[in-house]
């Protein structure tokens, strides 16, 4: 039972921790841009304010799908933290994205549609890479379970460094960071899928982003095996890398993103898979 305490605690607190990560990230980003930036708890202020807004929706199905996106993402995250089968986790994450995409498509808003289109395309960009990484993990640990990676004696990072690089390359797509934030693309499509949400219903989509942070950093953490210190180091390094990248790049368009992700990240993951399976 003791082994479950930490994951369960993490799962329950995931939105809170994710919010803190997001708040901290906004500060780091602001500092990198030589600004002071918002307070650390800013995401929670946003959260509480959004709860207070008048509820305005386009139509009920749209709003409902947004909420279910949050719920299913949380569920996928819970399974990941509990050490479930990685392929299942990836597909459950796909399910949550699917609900968001359907929400985007369910309205008659151009920008929402564009955002949903781009979200679907970004799935094409990162999903195969994640699956290949999961398979490499399987080859190294003998099991698809995330739990096997968490408990692996030797950090997986040393066994599959290229896969880690591939993961680092696709993480900006998932976390909607420049240069791959095409799905959100504030200046082009003003937020894409999340555009039509407001008030309480936007909150679901907004906090789902925080959960995505935890999801992604947990994926990074997998590479450290049972070595917690290394895991924390990896997560911190990834955090800095993501912010530095976000602050030093412009947004590319979705074709370039696909070319980059399928051309470089996917190839790296594949080479890693080959090396792992041949040796």
């Amino acid at each position, binding site marked *: 039972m003791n082994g479950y305490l930490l994951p369960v605690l993490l799962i329950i607190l995931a939105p809170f921790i994710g919010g803190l990560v997001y708040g901290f990230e906004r500060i780091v980003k602001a500092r*990198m*841009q*030589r*600004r002071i930036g918002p307070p650390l708890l800013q995401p929670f202020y946003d959260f509480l304010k959004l709860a207070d807004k008048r509820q305005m929706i386009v139509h009920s199905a749209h709003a409902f799908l947004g909420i279910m996106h949050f719920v299913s993402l949380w569920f996928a995250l819970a399974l990941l933290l509990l050490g479930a089968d990685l392929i299942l986790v990836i597909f459950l994450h796909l399910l949550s994205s699917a609900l968001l995409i359907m929400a985007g498509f369910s309205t008659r808003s*151009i*920008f929402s*549609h*564009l955002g949903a289109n781009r979200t679907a395309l970004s799935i094409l960009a990162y999903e195969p890479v994640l699956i290949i990484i999961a398979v490499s993990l399987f080859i190294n640990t003998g099991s698809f379970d995330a739990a096997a990676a968490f408990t692996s004696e030797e950090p997986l990072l040393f066994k599959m460094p290229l896969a880690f690089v591939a993961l680092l390359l696709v993480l900006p797509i998932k976390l909607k960071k*420049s*240069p791959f*934030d*095409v799905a959100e*693309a*504030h*200046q*082009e499509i*003003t937020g894409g899928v999340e555009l039509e949400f407001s008030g309480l219903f936007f909150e679901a989509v907004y906090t789902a982003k925080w959960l995505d942070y935890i999801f992604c950093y947990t994926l990074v953490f997998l590479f450290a095996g049972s070595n917690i210190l290394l895991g924390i180091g990896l997560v911190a390094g990834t955090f800095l890398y993501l912010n530095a990248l*976000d*602050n*030093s*790049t*412009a*947004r*590319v*368009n*979705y*074709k*370039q993103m696909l070319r980059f992700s399928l051309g470089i990240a996917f190839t790296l993951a594949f080479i890693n898979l080959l090396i792992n399976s041949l040796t």
Partner: protein
Amino acid sequence: MGKQYEIPVGAQHISLLEPLHFRFTTENEKIVKTDANVFYVHRGIEQACCSKFKFRQVSFVVGRVCGLCSISHTTAYSQVAEKLLKIEIPRRAKYLRMLVIELDRIHSHLLCLSHVAENSGFEALFMKTMQYREFSMELLEAVCGNRIQYDFSIVGGVTRDLKPEVADMILKRLDHFMPQLEELIGIYKNNWTLSLKNKGVGRISKEDAMRLNVVGPFARAAGLAVDVRNETEDLLPWKEVGYEMITDTAGDVHARNMVRLREIEVSIRIIRNVIAGLPESDLVTETKAFPEGEATVRLEAPRGELFYYAKGNKTQVLERLKIKAPTFSNVAGMVHAFTNNEYASAPAIIASYDPCLSCTAR
């Protein structure tokens, strides 16, 4: 229906500062057709200038045609009024006008560049450019007394003198700015992702630029050497203070960025020369005459050639005032250059035109 998406941009859109409306017809997010609607901001300034305001007041009104290049408008109007009044203004006033016009050009270009960066999704560069731009705003405030809407030129001369300590401050701040400008040039030139977004995007060929009558940095980036500062010497002595034509050949967003950045260098040189060679004289030529006859004036605003036509009939109120703003000439070229680009680049392209719709619509 079919394969085409129609994407509206504007009247209100985050990538736009002003109300204007583009309707992009896209296929796979590739723009195949553009409809532009730019006259949201029409207020009726020309008519008001010929009826409501006296001719000496008009220079303050036309400043409000556009907040970014208000000095160009007021100067151009002052010049056309001086032509109607048939007076020559003091040499020091001419120099001070050039000084403020060039300072204004720096701030306008930097704003445009930062806007391009923002619309390319490069937030950090936007912040950086905005940060470096603040120096020009502070200098303008020191010279004219306001950050925007300087009302510096009036009919007959300028309103304020340049104090020696302000001149020192300008030189010092310019020295301070030079390395920052180098840094900006480095980023705009070499950042890989930015070049993905900017190079070869929003392209207009030299022939098209000439055919569509494009002006300003937009034209100069396409290799078209048009600059009023190069052509007329009679009103402001540009050549004296070291003006130099900047052109590029690519005609894309990147070339426009580069032209703007290098024009800032030229502007800095001009400002230094102006301060070094500032002649001593009065600031204003007084006259009691009324405007009479017709006159035209051309002036290089940050966005290109600004054209003023005025007709007086020996009364306090002008009979006709016609303003043709640079963006007005550029609209056709703007719409043309969108074709066959990704919609994703459209905001950056819009920003790179540096459109000023309040000028266009007046």
